[in-house]
């Protein structure tokens, strides 16, 4: 296990009583201690993206977008198709390299060469289509690519089943996710349960930021409520989340603040307030360009 970055455990498992651990550290996403001393924790955004630009051939997908996500904040990200929201999140999760601009995590500039790199630095992504292996059980999916190892003989690394199972159970318990058995194959779970497993996986490894790309798009109404409840639970436990959704009511329900993108530019950055009808009207106006009065606009 030593020297194997793929299997770094998140939380101490040696403690015999997980309840005690939870009381000492009520928030598993609690603020890291090693951030720079010059800023107070509250003022340094957990993620800051500065004037990100990204072109695909002649298409300017992102024309200088700023984004800041604060600790324990849920940030909604909306926009019409091709507004650039997915591109922006792919830049943040390491799938794309920005042509220009900077990414800072807790005040420190970072470069991601691939998604795994971003994951190691605490950026986790939850996908619309779950990105799970249906032939494997819940434990195997939560630990996919980061299996716990109990014995290593060169390329032969023997898995630590007990630890992975305990850890999975405690993550599911913590998030109040109800799945009959963690040894159940994912193909036997409902859509909502699968998305819950995907979210549990994103939170199981000391995530600083959880990006959810349309987490409710493939779900039934009941399952959507389940996932939104999970987002609220994560927020209550201290997580910082960016959620992309075309369902404005989802954003309205769970987010603290939202950013609207239009044609690769940020056209609005506002807190969530007012009743849902006004909110929707305002957002749609920004999305379709009927309203374009964002002061801090860095349009080119």
């Amino acid at each position, binding site marked *: 296990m030593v020297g194997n970055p*793929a299997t770094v455990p998140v939380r101490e498992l040696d403690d015999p009583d997980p309840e005690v651990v939870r009381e000492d550290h009520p928030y598993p996403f609690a603020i890291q201690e090693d951030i720079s001393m010059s800023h107070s924790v509250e003022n340094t955004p957990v993620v800051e993206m500065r004037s990100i630009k990204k072109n695909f051939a002649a298409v300017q997908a992102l024309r200088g977008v700023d984004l800041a996500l604060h600790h324990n904040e849920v940030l909604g990200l909306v926009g019409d198709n091709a507004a650039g929201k997915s591109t922006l999140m792919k830049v943040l999760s390491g799938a794309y390299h920005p042509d220009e601009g900077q990414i800072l995590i807790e005040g420190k500039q970072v470069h991601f060469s691939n998604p795994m790199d971003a994951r190691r630095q605490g950026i986790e992504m939850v996908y619309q289509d779950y*990105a799970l*292996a249906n032939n494997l059980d819940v434990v195997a999916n939560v630990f996919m690519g980061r299996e716990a190892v109990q014995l290593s003989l060169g390329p032969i690394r023997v898995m630590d089943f007990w630890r992975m199972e305990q850890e999975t159970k405690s993550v599911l318990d913590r998030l109040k996710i109800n799945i009959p058995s963690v040894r159940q194959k994912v193909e036997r779970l409902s859509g909502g349960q699968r998305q819950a497993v995907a979210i549990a996986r994103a939170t199981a490894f000391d995530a600083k930021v959880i990006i959810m790309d349309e987490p409710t798009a493939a779900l039934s109404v009941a399952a959507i409520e389940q996932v939104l409840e999970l987002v609220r639970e994560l927020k209550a436990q201290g997580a910082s989340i960016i959620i992309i959704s075309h369902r404005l009511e989802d954003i309205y329900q769970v987010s603290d603040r939202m950013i609207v993108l239009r044609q690769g530019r940020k056209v609005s950055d506002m807190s969530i307030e007012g009743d849902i009808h006004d909110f929707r009207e305002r957002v749609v106006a920004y999305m379709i360009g009927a309203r374009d009065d964002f002061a801090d606009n860095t349009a080119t």
Partner: protein
Amino acid sequence: MSFINEARKLLSENIRDYAMFVALFVIIGIFTVTTDGLFISSRNIVNLVNQTGYIAVLAVGMTLVIVIRHIDLSVGFLAGFLGAIAAIAMTSWGLPAYLAILLVLGFGILAGLLTSTLVAELGIPAFVATLAGWLGYRGALQLATRATGTIIISDEGFVAIGNGFIPDIGDIGILPETHKITLLLGLLAIILFVSGEIMARGRMREQGFEVLSTPIFVLKQVFVTALIGVIAWILAGYQGLSWTAVIILIVVLFYHFITTRTVLGRHIYAVGGNPEAAELSGISVKRITHVVFASMGMLAALSGILFAARLRSATTTAGTLFELDAIAAAFVGGVSAAGGVGNVVGSLIGALIMASLTNGMNLMQIDISYQYIVRALVLAAAVIFDVTTRRKGLIKG
């Protein structure tokens, strides 16, 4: 949970695994009756195991290839070609048998890596890439054997791999006419298995896992003990455990361990289940593809060695259609063409089922044409069973 309920639950959860064993037992039972016990005789069972060897090792490798959603059609002639290389290495180059074997296993790995490079790096569909391999290795086999025709292998050690038996202690007064070491090994296997099971159960119970209830657990131990005991007894009745059987056991146990216990095995199944998700999780799909095809190539070499050793020679047509027998064995053994599902023990059972059919029908002197049709029906039945049990188990998401 009552005994009946638990048994029912186990059955419904593992029906696909159990069904294979049941099918094998039924086939053995039918042939035992129709051949007046000739089928189950020690000599025939040993023969059957040795006949299965070179297909079984291919089926093990093929299982993993199919699990990661590929196929390898080249392994039959690759096995034949590498068997010929082993023969040439010993007869013409004067290499000792062990060096010839190592050399050929190395060539097998290289051949596998060549395939995986085409598949993983250049994105060529495995079906096409290995079809090219099928043609190429067929040509290579003919070239290698053109000058000499069939190459006779005289090295006793090499030939023993396909024909020999493990040594036995001399006559000690008890159990004459039986192979005592084989019985002892059987006993050892039983002790290791049962004590391992008991320890694992205790440990799991300590850690709060759900374990089998005592009656079911005891029943399982009794069943496995009887199974190993009967097999050991039958083998001991002739000349004991053959070297081919030893090799099959080592290969299957090793691959079973790798696929069920290690990170590598987990990654292979993750890639088979959802390659995109695996890649996003930091698993290199390319690396897994290389590893799986390299292992397939090595097992093809082993298959070629077993076949050449069994025939005491390398022939110009060695390996013909091995690949299709291996693929059929894997599918009969519960591998799913959709990827991600199937295990090496199942494929061994699949290979034994297919070999038993051939062997049993030969003993019954059934026309070869009907033999093919019967085997076709068994393959189709296995896949139909697989598809229907899988569908029933699913809850719509």
